[in-house]
């Protein structure tokens, strides 16, 4: 489940326009019109990107009259964030193991383990 949503999240993040949209949303809620402004893109094109981001759980949209303002989805962002926690933890585990390997490689131990 975590893996699946992470896959969607990373696919969504693979596109530079979508990353720029997220960066904009990190500063607060915005409508499609507001999001389309800085990009040389049509509203329907932006809407397609928003659909991908929504599907990946990275943004949520609410209905306000005819508008559908978007904002970052805390949960989706956290699932990407967790990837880095995993990286940190995996690195720590790996480096502890490397300490042991290096102890075995030391020349004063007489032999080099293979």
């Amino acid at each position, binding site marked *: *489940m*975590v*893996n699946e949503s*992470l*896959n969607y*999240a*990373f*696919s969504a*993040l*693979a596109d*530079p326009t979508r*990353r*720029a949209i*997220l*960066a904009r949303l*990190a500063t607060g809620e915005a409508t499609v019109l507001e999001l389309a402004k800085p990009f040389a893109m049509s509203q329907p094109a932006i809407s397609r990107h928003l659909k991908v981001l929504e599907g990946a759980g*990275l943004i949520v949209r609410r209905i306000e009259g005819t508008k559908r303002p978007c904002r970052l989805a805390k949960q989706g*962002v*956290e699932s*990407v*964030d*967790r*990837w*880095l*926690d*995993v*990286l*940190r*933890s*995996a*690195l*720590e*585990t*790996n*480096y502890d*193991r*490397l*300490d*042991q*390997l*290096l*102890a075995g*490689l*030391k020349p004063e131990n007489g032999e080099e383990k*293979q």
Partner: protein
Amino acid sequence: MSKMTLKTEGDTHVVVTRRFAGSPEAVYRAHTEPELIKRWMLGPPGWTMPVCINEAKPGGKIRIEWSDGKGAGFYLTGECIELVPFSRIVHVERMHLPDPTPDNHIVTDFTPDGEGTLLTMRMTLPDAATRAQMLATGMEHGMEASYARLDEIVSTAVGAAKG
């Protein structure tokens, strides 16, 4: 040997440091020779590395596959860019989960530090937004809670960066 640090730098970097009780040559070799890499770059307990290709030369291919022994796993691909024996490795890597993560450009420096080695791994992500997404607030402070979740996460989406 000493505590690892993991910090952000500028808009797009993540910097990891760690001291080791081994010479720069030994630590460098542990990062470049597949037979040595396979002995430590394994991620969580119980995981194995059935494939480890690391062509330690400019343009050389990197491919590392991890398996949990129960049918789950993932892999990493990359390319070596520059190698300065016993002092620096420059490479790019991406994880496949199975979709590729954004390219991570990594410079790893091995600096003599007393009797040991200071390892500095500087990752550069494509842009600020990508890194911001990866480092959303609380990462540095929310570690304890993360560890509590780790068991659940490693069973499905485990990662281990090749340093």
